[in-house]
């Protein structure tokens, strides 16, 4: 099956929950703190979860990203260089045909887009992609 972007967006909005975040500590490790709140400090594995993002953003104000995590019940996305790192969390149920979602993120500067997935067995996975935000220049 080939999912189109429109399908994904429609699916994502169905499963999307506005993430409520309280006051954030002004620390460089804000993303780590947020992750710890979700996982309760549990170990972060890897495997099923992937983050797809451009290596260099064409426009830092609207960077298309995609997360895919077969077997996940929830995926939370963070932009670790933004003043407010929390971006979105997606919840997936057994009726979702595909545990993947896509959205766009505003990135203040070059940074990592970090995703945390909570799997059906309660374990957590982490994946990230580095996205460069550049002022542009000259090609060959």
């Amino acid at each position, binding site marked *: 099956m080939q999912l*189109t*972007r*429109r399908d994904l967006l429609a699916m994502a909005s169905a499963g999307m929950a506005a993430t409520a975040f309280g006051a954030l500590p002004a620390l460089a490790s804000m993303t780590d703190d947020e992750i710890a709140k979700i996982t309760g400090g549990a170990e972060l594995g890897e495997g099923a979860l992937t983050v*797809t993002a*451009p*290596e*260099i*953003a*064409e*426009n830092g104000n609207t960077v*298309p990203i995609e997360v895919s995590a077969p077997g996940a019940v929830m995926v939370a996305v963070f932009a670790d260089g933004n003043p407010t790192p929390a971006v979105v969390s997606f919840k997936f149920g057994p009726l979702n045909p595909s545990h993947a979602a*896509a959205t766009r993120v505003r990135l203040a500067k*070059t940074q990592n887009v970090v995703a945390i997935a909570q799997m059906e067995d309660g374990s957590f996975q982490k994946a990230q992609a580095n996205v*460069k935000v*550049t*002022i*542009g*220049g*000259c*090609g*060959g």
Partner: protein
Amino acid sequence: MISRRDFLQVGMAASALVGASGFGNWARLAAQQRLTQDQLLQFDTFGNVSLIHITDIHAQLKPIYFREPSVNIGVGGNKGAVPHITGADFRKAYGIEDGSPSHYALSSGDFSALAQGYGRVGGLDRVATVINAIRADRPDAILLDGGDTWHGSYSCYHTQGQDMVNVMNALKPDAMTFHWEFTLGSDRVNEIVENLPFAALGQNIFDAEWDEPSELFPPYKMFERGGTKIAVIGQAFPYMPIANPGWMFPEYAFGIRDENMQMMVDEVRAKGAECVVVLSHNGFDVDKKMATVVNGIDVILSGHTHDALPEPVVAGSTIVLPSGSNGKFVSRVDLDIRDGKMMGYRTKLIPIFSDVITPDAEVSALIDAQRAPFETDMAEVIGKTDSTLYRRGNFNGTWDDLICDALLSERDAEIAMSPGVRWGPSLIPGQEITREDIWNVTSMTYPEAYRTEMTGEFIKVILEDVADNIFNPDPYYQQGGDMVRTGGLGYRIDVSKPQGSRISDMTLLSTGETIDPARAYVVAGWASVNEGTEGPPIWDVVESHIRKQGTVTVQENNSVDVVGV
């Protein structure tokens, strides 16, 4: 799947054969003054499929001079690897004799002297002769254009690419991919592509709004040739809206998209392709990395970084061939495709020595017809040069030094910036500089020569940003091209450092003072990617400067101190 070892053995044997019969012989032939068209075209037809690759023509219809770089630094895993060796080191690596035709065609050193002897290179009427000769051997050879075709000359600018479209159509390509074409603006690109008599490919050309594959640019085309099925997948330049003005083609998004490339490779394999060819405008190092990330690509025909190598580089189980620029080379790639896989290959990078290869009369006439309306304007002599004027090199070229001087004096600036593009032919000492020559190194659809104030701090940010586009150790973060050229400004660069700490010792050359991060400097430049940039077109600025000089002499430029190599 063919194992890597089998593959290497087959490949080495095949390429060694050509090494003996092809490029290795030119030196001797030249020594005997016997360089002939037959020798340049000599090729023992191999296997059952032939590909012909030409790329990065930059609208050079006529023969030109083109000096290869002296400085082309490789970083990370590509340190010291081809094409990041130049001059005598390059010749040593390939066993090329000094003073030979291969020396002149492929490497820097003694350029102006050799140019006198060997003459101009390129010319699409000569290219036509070579293509016809290959088609005589193999009538169903697949001709592939790697892009940067509809950009780079006076007549191309004034016809919005139509001169190139008309001449290329006469060569009958089978497919093409893209980069500078998009700077014609999306309306014009769409108009041309809708009427192209061949495939316009780009698996990474997406609709910007929905981030879905663009309908106008299919990802691949299947060819049935020589009793087998070959898939050609297009890969456009990934960083167009960053390296070029994205506002000129806002409907399109690009990127490397290697996960989509993998999907396309799997899809064409499932449809029965026994050989997968990628027609790429990634740039050489990006192609080498992509060959190891994506499984199942047999051949990458590589463009964008204007490198020319006499033999393919093997990356994973993929051969990567870069075929130069400006019409200087045509690659012939013969493949043996059997039992669902590529069993071997034989390649030859054919240099287009314009005095040796007979022009195709029909294409010659067609080229002249495209140029006729502009011939008087293009031929006007503006000045003369005492120095070799060239562009290729990581940090500066004499053409760029001249352009920066023009910006400093004509725009009354303290600092000049000129983009590190790799296109633009060379001139040799004693040559007259015509208007066409100036346009060949400046022609573009965003030529405004701006004059503005920038703080020392911001100038450093620009230098750091551009440096990371070239010297980031991960090829996927490299955009191709070279360092922004500076006039009136000297600096030190440590290419081994990360972004933000490569540039130091910035100096205003007119006073010898260290650049003050807080002070505002008057900066003139051109080719800004920002919408609404104002100023006279750069070609007028350069023409006015050269007229005042009469005869141009460019001094050696030592303003950039490069360390960490």
